[in-house]
């Protein structure tokens, strides 16, 4: 059921929304089992490839538990029709929150380029070698941290 502008009436909206395409199925009804399957796959792969004294089943369970919330969330993002979410505004791209995010993302891109460039130069000159996983986590932390902080600053300024 939709309004004349194609969006669901507020009363028909739910906290976690429904599937895209006009389905009545709650998005979480698919996102949770699908995310669980993906998390188990990640756990099995991690257990099979883990090269350490830790028992493989412990590694598998650990990876499954840690990745489960993120994978459920990821599947939900792809499946949910945002017009069925309670409280969701109709035009987020025209709201100031969208402008704050765009501005924060632009700044974060520059920050990431600058910091990874300086870091690469430093490690090249000093001949210090670090693990690739650590380096990638560092890039991720810089990008997400910069974007988050810049968004909060923009929101505070209004």
């Amino acid at each position: 059921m939709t309004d004349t502008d194609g969006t669901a009436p507020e009363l028909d909206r739910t906290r976690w929304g429904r599937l895209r395409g006009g389905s009545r199925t709650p998005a979480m009804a698919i996102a949770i089992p699908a995310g669980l399957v993906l998390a188990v796959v990640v756990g099995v792969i991690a257990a099979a490839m883990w090269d350490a004294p830790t028992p493989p089943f412990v590694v598998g369970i650990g990876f499954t538990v840690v990745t489960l919330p993120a994978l459920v969330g990821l599947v939900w993002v792809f499946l949910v029709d945002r017009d069925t979410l309670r409280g969701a505004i109709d035009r987020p791209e025209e709201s100031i929150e969208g402008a704050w995010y765009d501005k924060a993302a632009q700044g974060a891109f520059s920050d990431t380029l600058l910091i990874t460039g300086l870091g690469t130069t430093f490690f090249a000159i000093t001949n210090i070698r670090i693990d690739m996983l650590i380096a990638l986590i560092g890039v991720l932390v810089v990008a997400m941290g910069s974007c988050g902080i810049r968004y909060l600053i923009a929101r505070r300024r209004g």
Partner: protein
Amino acid sequence: MQNSLCALRQDRGWSQQRLADELGVSRQTIISIERGRFDPSLPLAFRIARLFETTIESVFEPDGE
């Protein structure tokens, strides 16, 4: 950019939330536009003008004019 959105809204006796709902944007967006801290996109400016049955240039005025 200066604007008369606050006056137009108050003339109709609408709250900021009511106007936000009419335009499909967040209440914070209305607050920021009224304070002159956020310039709306052209489509949003057109919807504002249409909602108040007026023209864009009668709602928004560039700084320094």
